[in-house]
């Protein structure tokens, strides 16, 4: 079937989509956007997190056809041109990236948190990121990165 939706601001149409396919598969394999990662395909790891109409969701659990006509924003759409989004810069600066597999999903989820809670408590950060697994960092540096991004946001 044909599926058409807006990705990072541009309207895209793909043909030949299998009806049972996930939005994640369409993004990665048909639209050339491999930023969103495929790790579990069952909603457990959060590495496929994208915005769907402004709400973070697991792209692996959205049927491609459910995205028809909607707005999708992936990790590729967080930066403005060459300038990283503040949360991305904070991940780099805080050393919150090791293998990087969990990073795209965490960035989208943390980005959403800071949109709604510019100055989140540690408990709020943990709660917001509870659906994003990281096998490398032990999470401390990820928490540091979110705190850093929040502090920088408050400072500007």
């Amino acid at each position: 079937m044909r599926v058409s939706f807006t990705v990072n601001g541009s309207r895209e149409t793909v043909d030949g989509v299998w009806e049972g396919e996930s939005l994640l598969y369409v993004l990665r394999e048909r639209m050339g956007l491999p930023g969103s990662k495929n790790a579990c395909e069952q909603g457990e790891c959060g590495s496929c997190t994208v915005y769907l109409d402004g709400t973070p969701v697991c792209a692996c659990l959205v049927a491609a056809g459910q995205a028809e006509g909607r707005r999708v924003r992936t990790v590729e759409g967080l930066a403005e041109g060459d300038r990283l989004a503040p949360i991305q810069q904070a991940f780099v600066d805080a050393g919150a990236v090791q293998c990087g597999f969990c990073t795209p999903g965490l960035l989208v989820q943390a980005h959403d948190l800071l949109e709604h809670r510019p100055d989140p408590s540690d408990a709020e950060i943990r709660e917001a990121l509870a659906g994003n697994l990281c096998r490398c960092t032990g999470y401390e540096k990820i928490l540091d990165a979110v705190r850093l991004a929040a502090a920088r946001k408050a400072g500007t």
Partner: protein
Amino acid sequence: MEFLQPTTWDEALAAKAEHPEAVPIQGGTDVMVELNFDVRRPEHLLDLGRVAGLDRWEQNGDRLRIGAGVTYARIIGELGDRLPGLAQAARTVGSPQIRNRGTVGGNLGAASPAGDGHPPLLAADAVVEVESRRGIRMIAATDFYQGVKRSALEPDELIRAFWLAPATGPQYFSKIGTRNAMVIAVCSFAVALHPGERRVGTGIGSAAPTPIRAVAAEDFLARELDWDAPLDEAVAREFGALVGAAATPIDDVRGTAAYRRHALAVMARRTLTWAWRDHRGPGDAENPGRGAA
């Protein structure tokens, strides 16, 4: 496979009548896992995500009618004050991403004994509104769950909404799991005080083939509770024991049957104690509440 995408409820019912084997998909948090892992290959996927009105809720007389497409995130955000038990259960579902998509309608559709929506629905006497081209049926939650992942839904029927009254007394939900997010309940328990009727409702999850009420425990409280006095410790304990006895759990990877019975007894006693603290209000010295429970 065919992807059916009705935009009205009538179209959705027509599609389900024409293709009774079609798999409805709402938030997709159960259905997509099955598709991704090749557990299911239905001929038709019936996307309900665009059906007008399914994602609304309204006050209808003295009850709330909540569309099958209302997400957990919205139940927490918009109905947390009126439906505290269901909202507490919703907060324990999966992760923020799952709660942004998953719905109570889908929880009912899946009818898993571990579904966290069910115990609070049972405790608060919810009714499920299902419909087909043949007509509407209002099914009490107690009659809705029929077996492991089996409900009273006929193949041509869809869940449109569920009905329940805004809380008239304290409600609590409690769930056992290995971490604070992303866990299927080892077992769970919901309690709802109905002070007007001097009655307490209960719901047990993940400790029987279906979600169930602890009827003997409810009857016991209806007889023994003194609604104008502090909670009698012995009554709370016996209530817990009766809740544990109501369950018919199994041993599995998540826990043993014995553990589940014990945990249910503890959760029932604690949630009743918390609810009673709220019912009696602050200053009830003999009912110190959460910390001491």
